[in-house]
């Protein structure tokens, strides 16, 4: 009788939890939440790229992101590219060539600064908004077990990769992601080598931020390492997200 009572009690206690097992979409939303901040954002990013012909290049730029998701990249090195920038307002992305003093409208799928990186690499994590997620069979690598999710872009959404596969560890940190073309052809594989933990000054909650990401282009074999530094979450002057601000940089 006592055994039966315990069983009933356990069933009553754990039933809601069992019934509310997270869906793949909820897990992805949780990953987004763990990586996002609601405040303005500024960080230094360094891209070191090595091409199959052994040519190497390094680019240093600052990423500015407003709390309403306007985005600006300002390239500071190498000198030949210094002053170049990208500005995203709403769904429009422009590239500014400091040498020519001209703006060019770009699409969010195209690479930036002549590297294999793209604008979305430096954007807020929006996986649950842009994609429909399904969970695949977990994968074991070197004794560690990783959950695997296949994300497919929602209709009408403009994203760099129409489908994305992510490998997630037990702490729901992305350790690897692979982007695919709509035809299923692999385009790029990223390995997240290190994270940093930061505190959102607006909410007081901590969140995860990439510290170093290794990217490999599937076709062509170009590899790049992106490192982040000097992340600041203080409010930014809204005039930064204007063409005039970027054009004005070249005179400084």
């Amino acid at each position, binding site marked *: 009788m006592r055994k039966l009572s315990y069983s009933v009690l356990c069933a009553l206690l754990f039933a809601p939890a069992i019934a509310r097992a997270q869906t793949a979409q909820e897990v992805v939303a949780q990953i987004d939440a763990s990586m996002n901040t609601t405040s303005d954002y500024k960080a230094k990013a360094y891209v070191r790229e090595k091409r199959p012909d052994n040519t190497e290049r390094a680019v240093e730029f600052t990423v500015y992101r407003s709390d309403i998701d306007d985005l600006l990249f300002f390239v500071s090195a190498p000198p030949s590219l210094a002053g170049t920038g990208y500005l995203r307002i709403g769904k429009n992305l422009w590239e500014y060539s400091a040498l020519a003093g*001209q703006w*060019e*409208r770009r699409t969010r799928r*195209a690479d930036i600064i002549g590297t294999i990186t793209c604008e979305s690499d430096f954007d807020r994590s929006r996986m649950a908004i842009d994609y429909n997620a399904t969970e695949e069979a977990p994968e074991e690598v070197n004794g560690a077990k990783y959950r695997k999710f296949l994300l497919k872009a929602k209709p009408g959404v*403009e994203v760099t990769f129409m489908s994305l596969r992510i490998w997630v560890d037990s702490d729901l940190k992305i350790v690897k992601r692979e982007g695919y073309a*709509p035809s299923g052809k692999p385009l790029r594989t990223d390995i997240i080598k290190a994270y940093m933990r930061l505190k959102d000054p607006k909410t007081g909650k901590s969140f995860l931020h990439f510290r170093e990401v290794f990217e490999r282009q599937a076709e062509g074999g*170009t590899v790049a390492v992106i490192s982040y530094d000097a992340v600041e979450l203080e409010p930014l002057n809204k005039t930064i997200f204007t063409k005039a601000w970027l054009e004005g940089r070249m005179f400084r």
Partner: protein
Amino acid sequence: MLFPLIRLALRNMLAQSRRLAALHILIVTSTALVVLLIAIDGGVGRSHRRAITTLISGEVNVTGFYKVHPDAITPLVADGRIIRKAVEGTEPDGCRWRERIYGHSVLAAGKRRSESFLIGVAPNNEAGLFGLVKGTKGDLSRLSEPGTIAISQRIADKLKVQVGDFVTLFASTTFSRRNALDGRVVAITETPGLLGDTSGVIASMAFLRELYAYQPNAVGVLQLECASPINPDPLAESLRAKLKEQGQPVLSPSREAFADKLTPLLREGWYGQKLDVSTWEDEGVFLTFITSGLGALTFLVETIVLAVVIAGIFMALSVAVRERTREVGTLRAVGMQRHHIAFMFLLEGLLLGLMGALGGLLLGALACAALSGNVALPETLQTLLFQRKMVLVLEPQRVVNALLLVSVGAAVGALLPAMKASRAQPRSAMESVL
């Protein structure tokens, strides 16, 4: 008198059939060669016209040249509705107006780049174009979906993309600003010859309007599409007059493609819009070297064949006249007139030429039937001949001309021997016996 002479000429030919066999074979093969060349020329001419009138031009075109200021020019009709209203009703039976926008763009997929001309079309109104370029993969009818493009196999190979993938198109707008737009590949098309590069990318006009930042009513050109070829010049002239009547500034006619008119017009100081009415021959003028070259080659071969026929018949009949002196003398002795003797030999030559020509025509026609549409051309020849597979077209008028050419050649070749035979005396019949 004619029929007995024909009978006599035929009997003589049969009697000497073994000796004339080599000449006969020569005439047959030469004629067959001419027929084949005529068919190649006809096929290329037809493919040439079809490619031009399907890809880059209509039978007649109404294009606009728009200058926002004197130093910039765009091939654009700012408001297609006004011009459409003006030209509607002028089209001959079996023809209709279609609208298009043309452009040029750099295409990118990842780090791969290519460039191509673009054709902006109304996807539901382009059966002719879709019949020519043919989607080898995907579905061309899906071009009506927003943000979609069709690319040629050559570009797909260069960019390593497949149906469903995205390609980014970069282009300059009218105001020299650079714009970019993503296009989802819904079809991969075959490349139809030299003009294949002009249709490297096909998209809806809405797509091109967005890429070039044109207003919704802007069109590049109004083209007259016809089920069968028409004489475009009188229609073009009447359209110019009609547009002028309606107060539209219209450029004077010139035998140039629209792209060649851009630079000279850019030097002119006016701004605003001027219309240009051109024909498919104007737009394809830069390609006439191919058809002209083939025409010249056919003419050269025809001349050689004519010389061969004249020389062959001359030699064969000269020998025949010498060998048949007794027979000719006998005919003269029994009362046949000189001009009848000459006519008989002329008839022999003519019949020999005509029979050879007919045999050659038959052989050539059989070869055409066997080869047409069955011989895949190498890429370089595809480019030159506007065909993926060899298309041979025999135009009746040109075939009749070839027959006449060989027959006249035969008659000319027979003229001198016939005149020599007619000079034979009746006593020559006895001389050869004695």
